[in-house]
């Protein structure tokens, strides 16, 4: 198993015949059939089987991610390059992960400086797929993991499976006017033609030119767990929020595109959010009409990177903590010709190594641990 992305890996990304070499596709076809249909699932399975030098692992239906991951691990080889999950959380379960260790929780509770301080809105519990790339049993991955949620739509799954790699031709972004740190990130995003970083409140859904939203796309806006069809910014001159981008702005055709979203819940593709999921509660998958992330996949985007819980970011341009280092590392990876799944994996590794990015209070360290675990790659990613 590769320890980190090598020059050889990068070469294989650029060679179409080797692009999927040594990938494992993981699904539970019995459940997928219920979501997208019998014949449609046959088409998906047959397409995956036709990809040379890959392996399909079809597991029995389970709602326990640890059990599914155990089944998967039996199929790992030293050459395994990554895992692509096919299906939503009800097909292959995600881990309901409490990112606070007992030690860190105690540290926060015993910190007199944090007395009466607010708490994370998700109670530090998020959905995470990293267990499917974890061979050491510590819930941190040794392999990149991506997920193509079925969104109850066979066309979405097949389009996403066939999505071409992103091309660094255009870049597009929208940032909250109160998050100038995103200017630094946008500068890192590679491009060779258009370059627009829109700013809310100047940018509203009516102003977005759909055709510009392709290539390398960056959102640094507010997202919402109860409504995944819009991202908002803030008002510049007074308090309040301003809608910046909505699902109707996703172009019909978004081939050769990778999206990175620093928005709360940007990659939450099912409900409830993890801290609300009581035992036995049914997972409700979002569709491409209910989620910007899935709308991008349906339109042919290769990957949508985002968070499954609330995201946090610094205010000032010169600060580099909370979400910003992850954003920078990810786009550096894309610039270095990594696939989106690999770029996120490498960004997570670098982020983990540098936690807490200069922060000293225990609760802020915990926020960084949450950021590390909750970023996820939706889409093929390879």
């Amino acid at each position, binding site marked *: 198993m590769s320890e980190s992305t090598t020059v050889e890996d990068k070469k294989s990304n650029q060679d179409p015949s080797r692009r999927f070499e040594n990938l494992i596709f993981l699904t539970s076809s019995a459940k997928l059939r219920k979501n997208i249909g019998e014949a449609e699932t046959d088409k998906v399975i047959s397409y995956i089987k036709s990809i040379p030098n890959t392996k399909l692992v079809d597991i029995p239906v389970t709602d326990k991610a640890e059990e599914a991951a155990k089944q998967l691990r039996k199929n790992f080889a030293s050459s395994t390059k990554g895992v692509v999950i096919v299906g939503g959380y009800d097909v292959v379960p995600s881990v309901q992960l409490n990112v606070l260790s007992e030690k860190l929780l105690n540290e926060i509770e015993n910190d007199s400086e944090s007395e009466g301080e607010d708490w994370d809105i998700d109670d530090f519990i998020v959905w995470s797929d990293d267990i499917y790339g974890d061979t050491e049993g510590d819930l941190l991955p040794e392999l990149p993991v991506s997920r193509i949620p079925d969104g109850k739509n066979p066309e979405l799954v097949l389009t996403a499976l066939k999505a071409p790699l992103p091309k660094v031709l255009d870049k597009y972004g929208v940032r909250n006017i109160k998050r100038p740190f995103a200017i630094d990130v946008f500068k890192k995003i590679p491009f060779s033609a258009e370059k627009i970083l829109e700013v809310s409140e100047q940018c509203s859904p009516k102003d977005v030119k759909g055709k510009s939203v392709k290539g390398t796309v960056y959102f640094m806006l507010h997202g919402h767990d109860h409504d995944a069809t819009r991202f908002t910014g803030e008002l510049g001159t007074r308090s309040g929020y301003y809608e910046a981008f909505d699902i109707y702005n996703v172009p019909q055709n978004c081939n050769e595109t990778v999206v990175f979203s620093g928005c709360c819940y940007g990659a939450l593709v099912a409900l409830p959010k993890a801290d609300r999921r009581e035992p036995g509660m049914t997972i409700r998958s979002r569709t491409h009409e209910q989620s910007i992330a899935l709308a991008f996949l349906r339109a042919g985007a290769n990957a949508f990177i985002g968070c499954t819980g609330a995201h946090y970011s610094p205010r000032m341009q010169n600060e580099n903590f909370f979400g910003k280092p992850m954003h920078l590392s990810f786009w550096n990876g894309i610039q270095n010709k990594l696939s989106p799944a690999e770029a996120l994996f490498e960004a997570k590794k670098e982020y*983990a190594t540098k936690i807490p990015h200069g922060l000293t209070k225990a609760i802020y360290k915990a926020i960084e641990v949450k950021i590390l675990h909750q970023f996820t790659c939706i889409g093929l990613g390879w």
Partner: protein
Amino acid sequence: MDLKKVEKKNPGWQFSQKISKRASKTVLDAATQTNLDIDAYNMKYAKQIKSKKALSDTPGKTKLNDKKWRMMKKESKYKSTDSLEDPKTGFYDAEGNEVASQG
């Protein structure tokens, strides 16, 4: 933390130190809990990052003066007529400046 300073520096917002609701015991029991501490995160990939030089060239180890920061709920006094916005978490320094935020 002087709440008045925060309000003065951030007009149009109202603040509360109301603690966000925690997950139920049944959710906490059902969730998978990590047992890693910060050192374990730092060590996990350290060799890999060192050996191939970190992808990001940005600094990340300068100590921040965050001991006096405060995490608070903020809510706009102006309510949007288009769509409702939940209260969000903001982080404020001793002078009342917003240094970070949810989102």
